[in-house]
């Protein structure tokens, strides 16, 4: 039975996924082009994408690495401001847009490194406290500083305005796919297993020769990087940045997405980021009570399914196909057996 299990070979699997993802891109893009999805709704679609990147990257640090960072919005802010300032000053072209994203990600990653190295050397929950402080410091600093070295750059509480609106469905979608792909392939490698081993049992990981501090920092920095990239996309989506939108509640909002989806499940993060972003738009009244509903949802999930919507389960499109194929052939076999 086990031996007969048909597996789709790797290259074919990648090809199938690629074709399916491309088809989805073209369909949704066509819907937007033909105004089936309205202009305002297409902005919602883009925010869904941004929140997916945020949730999937936070899931790396919480679900996979087992830490509890509470300042994801801080990394997002750092990425958003640095990429916005860069793109605003050098102008938006096909080259500077991705450059701005990478730049935003790198600046966030550097902040992640500076915070992560001291905090992650210690065992225990120091990271939660330090990242909580970091998020607030970033917000307060951005709120009160409007120029850097004499250059008027961040504009403090008055908001950073006139950022080129470079974010659209296509580039958001591509970045979402790249984020998921990078984190997925990383997790399915010796580096990812090292990260998981730390979550599972740090002492045992060390006794297996895993450089735990290095891998904790790696997981945390990659998570910060993608938060920064998401920030860059946000800047280009709104065209305006205000420090107040990167407060503690934003960090908690992302964390809720991860917890509801299931810590350690990328599919869960994607689904719950999608639902929780779309919901307030569908139910306008919901927006006022958003945090109340989030808390209630969280309590309900914690009572009935503490591991989150998807648990640690992850699915892939090609796996699904594989299952279907095998289901058919095993049914075929059973009837043969009955016949003999």
């Amino acid at each position: 039975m086990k031996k007969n299990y048909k597996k789709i070979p790797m290259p074919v699997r990648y090809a199938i996924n690629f074709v399916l993802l491309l088809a989805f891109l073209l369909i949704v893009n066509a819907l937007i082009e033909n105004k089936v999805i309205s202009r305002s709704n297409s902005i919602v679609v883009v925010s869904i994408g941004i929140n997916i990147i945020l949730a999937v990257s936070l899931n790396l640090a919480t679900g996979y690495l087992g830490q509890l960072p509470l300042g994801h919005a801080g990394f997002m802010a750092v990425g958003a401001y640095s990429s916005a300032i860069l793109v605003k000053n050098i102008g938006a072209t096909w080259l500077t847009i991705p450059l701005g994203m990478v730049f935003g990600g790198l600046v966030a990653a550097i902040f992640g490194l500076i915070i992560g190295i001291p905090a992650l050397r210690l065992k225990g929950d120091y990271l939660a406290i330090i990242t909580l402080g970091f998020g607030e410091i970033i917000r307060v600093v951005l709120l009160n500083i409007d120029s850097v070295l004499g250059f008027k750059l961040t504009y403090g509480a008055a908001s950073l305005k006139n950022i080129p609106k470079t974010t659209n469905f296509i580039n958001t979608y591509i970045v979402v796919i790249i984020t998921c792909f990078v984190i997925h392939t990383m997790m399915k490698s010796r580096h990812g297993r090292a990260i998981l081993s730390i979550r599972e049992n740090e002492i045992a990981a060390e006794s297996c020769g895993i450089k735990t501090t290095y891998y904790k920092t790696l997981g945390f920095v990659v998570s910060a990087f993608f938060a920064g990239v998401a920030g860059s996309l946000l800047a280009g989506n709104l065209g305006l940045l205000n420090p107040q939108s990167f407060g503690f509640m934003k960090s908690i909002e992302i964390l809720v997405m991860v917890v509801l989806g299931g810590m350690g499940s990328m599919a869960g993060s994607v689904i719950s980021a999608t639902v929780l972003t779309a919901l307030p738009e569908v139910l306008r009244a919901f927006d006022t009570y958003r945090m109340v509903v989030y808390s209630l949802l969280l309590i309900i999930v914690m009572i009935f399914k503490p591991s989150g919507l998807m648990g640690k389960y992850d699915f892939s499109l090609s796996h699904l196909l594989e299952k279907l194929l095998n289901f058919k052939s095993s049914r075929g076999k059973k009837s043969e057996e009955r016949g003999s």
Partner: protein
Amino acid sequence: MARRDIRAPFIPERDKDKTPILECVDLGIDFGGLTAVDDFNMTIGRTEIAGLIGPNGAGKTTVFNLLTRVYKPSRGKILLEGRDIESMNTIQVNKAGIARTFQNIRLFNELTVLENVLIGLHNEMNYNLLSAVLRMPHFWKDEKIAKNRALELLSLFGMEDLAGQKAGSLPYGAQRRLEIVRALATNPSLLLLDEPAAGMNPSETSELMENIRKVRDTFKIAILLIEHDMNLVMGICEGIVVLNYGKIIAKGTPEEVRNDPVVIEAYLGKKGDVPC
């Protein structure tokens, strides 16, 4: 029978002319006012199966924690193949050749059996993060070799069919075996087993005895084991050290230790396992 000097090294004849894999010299550690281990002198030969026994709380696990640098000793030194491990941490000690299992099992419970062993093989692979993310040939090659190696190691303990199961869902005995396989995966020259037979039934235990011997013969490594099951200890250990209240009270072959009046008294003085 004359008692053996408890400070003098004692290793099997065949390992005599090679540097011992492990030498502990006057090793000791205090926890606050409590001296958990003191004056600990032990030498283990390259291919020896050695035993560390003693009543509960004698300090056996503490010795393992000293050898793997989980604790820093208060006194004395540890030489691994003649090299002082003073400056190393737990991770470096593993790379230098010491692997261990834990008395209270520490598996990566949510991961599969195969993944547990692959984590042990982490340092046997050397592709970098970029080749992993881009799925370069180097990644596939290393992963394939590692997977085959993992299955080979699992099959030593008859566990290859369990490869896809979650480690945490295995029965107790299988979990203990998996810990040994994972430790072996790190390619040690000294394997430390902390009560490997705890919770096993007699038939599992005798199978384990065979497997420990097989591991030593296949990999030509040294094994130091802590065990309360005297049949197992007396059955496979060549040299035994007996610890009581943190100090060595006897050292020698199973024969010598079994009949040692000091050992018998240490064990009979409290309720617990009695040798034989």
